[in-house]
């Protein structure tokens, strides 16, 4: 029985003390029940993250599930760099109030059901939290599927009844988890995974050189930046530059990466870029020995080994450049070793699916595989392809789809296959045959103006209804609702020329044009007002972004100072150091006050008088002081290269100081700002949500199109000019006709008189 009162207080104190101590000693094994959580306790790198479902989908808005049976899947990416624990889905669902109690939603991850939510008509809004066991998750893409069974009656029902619906709020629904960095496996083949887009949150890579880099090293760094950017596909990436100082008195003594200054890579991953002699203090014996040829090496870094250092080196700057370029071209096929001389690598970057002018291209060539869809509202089928930025097509040109498709018997006459291009409805195919049908070469014309420069999405959405769908207890069959789209379907455009009007910073943002695509044949020159750390970092970040939007690296690239360049040029630095000729050619040319945009009475005559409404800047232009502009932040402006004989462009990116340039370009390449680029000049101001955009003061055409195409282009964009010319021609012919008639009359009169 219970102890005496005398002993109680002492026992209680001892018990509490022991409980506290024992808690500390015994807690860890208990936490180890949950696997990853144990590591999370002992490491300082654990971070809590939340991923709203809308970030996992290409489409915006809620996920809507209609009909008696439907499902939707979102892909939850997990990076190879992270170990996840305490993963939890917080799910907000609204269901139709017409649903009866048999209705429910099942949630599964990679095919395993992890939760079921009953739908209640009296409580249509539900919020559920579902813990997702980490044992069901894997590195890569995990399929989170929401499947519904929805009913409004116990007896026969119309499976496509409009009241059968539920919606997932993708803004409020969030996947939350703790992420702990994993130890790096030193394998070059893993490098793309170490930086890939699945690594959530902000990511930056610091490239360190011994002293400020020369042009050859900047070129090498540009290749490394592009390789890193392409690894991340579309995810944001900031490239930074750090300067290493070679320690004195260590001529023959080699140290290790641990001897790098603590914060050299800003707490993240890094690259050591330089010759073997420059990097000697930090190279281990193995790397040093093999660096007699161009070399790439990967080493874990940091206290827990969950960061990496990539070493790009060789005997001289040419070898370093070669190693970096090979990295860029071979980043998807690097060898599974910790270090390799580049001669052992096979370079080749996967090409993108590009739509060629006038050429017949099968869906298979563009990466599509034959697919069959089943059910009432099955998942759409998608084809994605790239359209070069400088394509110009005459009015009434078409993109023709030639479909090979088949659909099953028993579909109701209201069934359709709807076709969308870039989310705009373009065409529908009625699936009317009750016995089904197979179509070969079913032609669908789409106006070529529906194409956009860069990536285009062609979506095929089947809506198939069963012939029998309700009534007096009729059996409803949906298994026969089948549609197959074959990959030997093809598309073909009318002939398109190459002509585009610049400047157009939106085109640069979408496609990297004019620095990418066919015009890249001449190469791109990067001009820096000075090779300072800030300017170099900004250049690398920007080049990485351009490679991302192009989905392909810029391979022909050189770096120069402010000496004149005839071809395509990307100029970065401080405006004061820009040569006068280029200053004057840009919108920022005037001393004191600068004209931005068109102002009636100045600028491009054609634009002022004849431009179609869309080309006119309704807000007119304005004048600002150069000093004010520079103080605001970053200025990006595009103009025709005054030194070029073939309409090349200069894109100038300037800020007041190199450090401002570094930080503000890092912001500019973030998606929220980058997609705002447009017009001829853009100003980024720190803290502002919107970029200030101004149209160009002078436009110019670039492209290889013939005279006819240029004339067509001019008339399309200056319709009033076309009217004026036609009017003038008519007037001229009228006058000539009148003159001829007068002359004829005079001659006739003279003859008669005679």
């Amino acid at each position, binding site marked *: 029985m*219970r102890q005496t009162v005398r002993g109680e207080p002492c026992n*209680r104190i001892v*018990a509490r003390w022991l409980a506290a101590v024992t808690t500390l000693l015994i807690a860890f094994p208990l936490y180890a029940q949950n696997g990853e959580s144990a590591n999370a306790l002992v490491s300082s790198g654990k971070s809590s993250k939340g991923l709203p479902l809308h970030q996992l989908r290409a489409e915006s808005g809620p996920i809507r599930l209609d009909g008696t049976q439907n499902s939707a899947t979102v892909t939850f990416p997990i990076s190879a760099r992270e170990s996840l624990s305490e993963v939890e889905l917080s799910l907000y669902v609204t269901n139709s109030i017409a649903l009866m109690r048999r209705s429910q939603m099942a949630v599964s991850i990679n095919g395993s059901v*992890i939760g079921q939510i009953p739908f209640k008509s009296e409580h249509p809004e539900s*919020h559920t*939290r579902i813990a997702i066991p980490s044992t069901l998750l894997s590195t890569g893409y995990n399929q989170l599927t929401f499947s519904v069974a929805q009913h409004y009656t116990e007896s026969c029902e119309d499976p496509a009844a409009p009241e059968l619906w539920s919606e997932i709020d993708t803004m409020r629904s969030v996947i939350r988890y703790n992420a702990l960095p994993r130890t790096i496996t030193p394998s070059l083949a893993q490098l793309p995974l170490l930086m890939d887009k699945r690594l959530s949150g902000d990511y930056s890579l610091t490239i360190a050189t011994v002293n400020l880099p020369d042009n050859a090293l900047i070129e090498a760094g540009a290749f490394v930046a592009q390789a890193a950017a392409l690894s991340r596909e579309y995810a944001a990436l900031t490239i930074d530059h750090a300067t290493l100082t070679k320690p004195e008195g260590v001529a023959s003594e080699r140290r290790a990466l641990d001897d790098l200054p603590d914060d050299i890579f800003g707490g993240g991953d890094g690259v050591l870029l330089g010759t073997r002699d420059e990097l000697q203090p930090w190279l281990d014996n193995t790397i040093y020995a093999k660096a007699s040829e161009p070399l790439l090496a990967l080493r874990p870094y940091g206290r827990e080994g969950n960061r990496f250092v990539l070493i790009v080196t060789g005997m001289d700057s040419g070898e370093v450049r070669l190693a970096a370029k090979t990295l860029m071209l071979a980043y998807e096929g690097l060898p599974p070793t910790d270090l390799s001389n580049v001669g052992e690598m096979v370079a080749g970057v996967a090409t993108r699916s590009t739509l060629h002018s006038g050429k017949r291209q099968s869906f298979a060539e563009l990466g599509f595989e034959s697919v069959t869809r089943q059910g009432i509202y099955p998942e759409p089928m998608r084809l994605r392809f790239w359209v070069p930025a400088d394509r110009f097509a005459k009015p009434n040109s078409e993109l023709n789809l030639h479909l090979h498709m088949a659909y099953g018997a028993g579909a109701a006459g209201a069934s359709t296959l709807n076709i969308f291009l870039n989310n705009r409805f373009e065409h529908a195919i009625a699936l009317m045959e009750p016995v089904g049908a197979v179509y070969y070469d079913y032609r669908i014309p789409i106006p070529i103006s529906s194409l956009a420069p860069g990536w285009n999405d062609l979506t095929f959405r089947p809506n198939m209804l069963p012939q029998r769908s309700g009534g007096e207890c009729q059996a409803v069959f949906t298994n026969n609702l089948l549609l197959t789209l074959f990959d030997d379907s093809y598309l073909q455009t009318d002939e398109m020329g190459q002509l585009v009007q610049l400047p157009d910073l939106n085109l640069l943002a979408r496609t990297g044009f004019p620095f990418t695509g066919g015009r890249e044949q001449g190469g791109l020159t990067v001009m820096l007002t000075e090779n300072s750390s800030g300017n170099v970092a900004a250049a690398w970040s920007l080049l990485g972004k351009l490679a991302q939007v192009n989905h392909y690296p810029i391979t022909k690239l050189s770096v120069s100072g402010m000496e004149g360049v005839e071809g395509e040029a990307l100029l970065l630095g401080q405006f004061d150091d820009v040569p006068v000729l280029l200053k004057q050619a840009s919108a920022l040319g005037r001393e004191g006050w600068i004209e931005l945009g068109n102002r009636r009475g100045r600028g491009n005559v054609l634009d002022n008088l004849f431009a179609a409404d869309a080309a006119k800047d309704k807000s007119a232009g304005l004048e600002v002081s150069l000093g004010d502009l520079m103080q605001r932040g970053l200025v990006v402006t595009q103009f025709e290269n005054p030194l070029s004989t073939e309409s090349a462009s200069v894109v100038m990116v300037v800020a007041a100081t190199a450090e401002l340039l570094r930080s503000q370009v890092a912001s500019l390449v973030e998606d929220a700002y980058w997609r705002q680029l447009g017009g001829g000049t853009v100003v980024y101001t720190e803290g502002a949500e919107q970029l200030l955009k101004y149209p160009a003061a002078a436009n110019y055409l670039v492209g290889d199109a013939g005279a006819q195409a240029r004339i067509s282009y001019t008339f399309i964009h200056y319709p009033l000019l076309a009217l004026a010319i036609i009017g003038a021609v008519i007037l001229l012919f009228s006058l000539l006709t009148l003159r001829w008639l007068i002359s004829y009359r005079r001659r006739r009169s003279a003859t008669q008189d005679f």
Partner: protein
Amino acid sequence: MVKAVWMLSLLACLAGCQTWPGRIEAEQWQNYRQNFITPEGRVIDNANGGVSHSEGQGYGMLLAVSADDGETFQRLWHWTQTHLAIREDGLFAWRWDPSVEGGISDRNSATDGDLLIAWALSRAARHFGNDRYRQHASEIIRSLRHTVARETPMGSVLLPGAFGFEVENGVILNPSYFIFPAYAELATLDDAPYWIGLARQNAALLENLQRYYTGFIPDWTLLGDRGWQAPPGLPHRFGYDALRVPLYLCWGGERVATSMAEIEAYWKGSDARAWIALDGTEERASYPPGDAHRAVQRLLQSCLGARSEFQSIISPLPEDYYAATLTLLAQIAWQERFRQ
């Protein structure tokens, strides 16, 4: 002494090592408070004519701690003290009916309610830093041990109430009154070896009971001189009371016997019913297990090691008090048992 201290430390760890206390979301608590707690601090059992009982007050107090709502906790405790603490032995009357004059419709105590209230007071003392709650808890459990503690051939037990549960040939027990997580907590306030021993013996008793009832656990049973028998005047079924047994076993950190898998498997079956008779009559409910069963089933799956995911119903909570309460308790139990 040393052994008791180490056992005590182990129990204290089990009581406090996991995430503590388990969390209730603000949205859930608002929903629960709105539907089941009056402004005066009375927990309403809306499936039983709107009555209140000591068990409900105890549950409400536990949930208020997990919701970090000290004000509501105090109101619940105050109502409990002023309306149910009418017995002379320091225990609480178990039933209060608003339609009865004076409110009290049954003066008998209910051990589960007393345990839950004491347990909630102890947790509140720790969470809100109020020593007076701890003193009240100590008084209650001292009263419990004086009034309802008994020794049986199968070890120590607590009778379900102060009177009426000792019969000529044995004692009537309610296995769902074996609140294992409460034992662990209360051991830190009182005679630790007793509560530790009680936990161990009750766990063994449950295993024996389940073997006798071929996998099921009865709501009520009689432990007599001839072993387990039907309880006189009480339902002999596996039903709404007994479904809390896996909840408490799992929450208390007890090794959940593989025999509990039979209950989990039964609930998953297509012919499962909310209750079934254990008296050989094959009588059973006409409806399947509901939200209350599902709440415990989700926790049980994790305890059995079959699955480690858990689904918390944030909104809407089940409409009836019992299911809503068990839904939240299962969530708290899962967090305290499995989540850091």
